[in-house]
């Protein structure tokens, strides 16, 4: 009972809470910040965004992504491989969501964050390297917007439309 409460009560709470922060910041970057940074660059006020907003937003963004994934893995528990290997029909929908979330996590830690470190001056980079990093980070972030839509659909559908008793 206690373990069940920790795994399915607190675990789901943490998974959804951290997920809201992760995807909320992803949508902030793409729906708000891309256009805002462009306008701020045009009128010479972009420095504050790079100095004060982006480092803080990226801090919560990347750690929320990791916490979301770990809490999701804990929620799957002994069914982790059933989901990721599509071994059980009941876990196919959540398995698709889990794979999409895993690819997105890789994009955050393996692509977006290392490139943002160059853009924000946390890692040494030439102007040419910064321009390339800006493009790569932008495309990885936009790819995560694309993947987030089916990820959210299958995460919610696994407990609704595709929930096990209906199969």
């Amino acid at each position, binding site marked *: 009972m206690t373990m069940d409460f920790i795994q399915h009560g607190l675990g789901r709470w943490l998974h959804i809470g951290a997920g809201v922060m992760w995807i909320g910041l992803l949508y902030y970057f793409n729906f708000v910040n*891309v256009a805002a940074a462009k306008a701020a660059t045009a009128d010479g006020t972009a420095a504050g965004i790079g100095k004060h907003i982006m480092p803080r937003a990226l801090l919560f963004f990347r750690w929320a992504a990791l916490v979301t994934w770990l809490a999701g893995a804990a929620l799957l528990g002994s069914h982790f491989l059933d989901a990721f290997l*599509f071994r059980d*029909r009941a876990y196919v929908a959540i398995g698709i969501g889990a794979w999409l979330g895993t690819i997105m996590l890789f994009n955050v830690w393996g692509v977006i964050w290392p490139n943002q470190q160059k853009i924000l001056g946390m890692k040494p980079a030439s102007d040419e390297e910064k321009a390339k990093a800006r493009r790569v980070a932008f495309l990885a972030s936009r790819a995560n917007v694309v993947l987030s839509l089916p990820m959210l659909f299958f995460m919610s559908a696994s407990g609704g439309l*595709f929930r096990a008793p209906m199969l």
Partner: protein
Amino acid sequence: MKNPLDSLWGSVISGVVLTAVLYVVVKLMIGG
């Protein structure tokens, strides 16, 4: 051809299309 990821709404539409494709794939996988 323009990269749909360069446009915010191109990205959103791509996500919706991918969702529909994966929905069909999942239905086929579970035999629904």
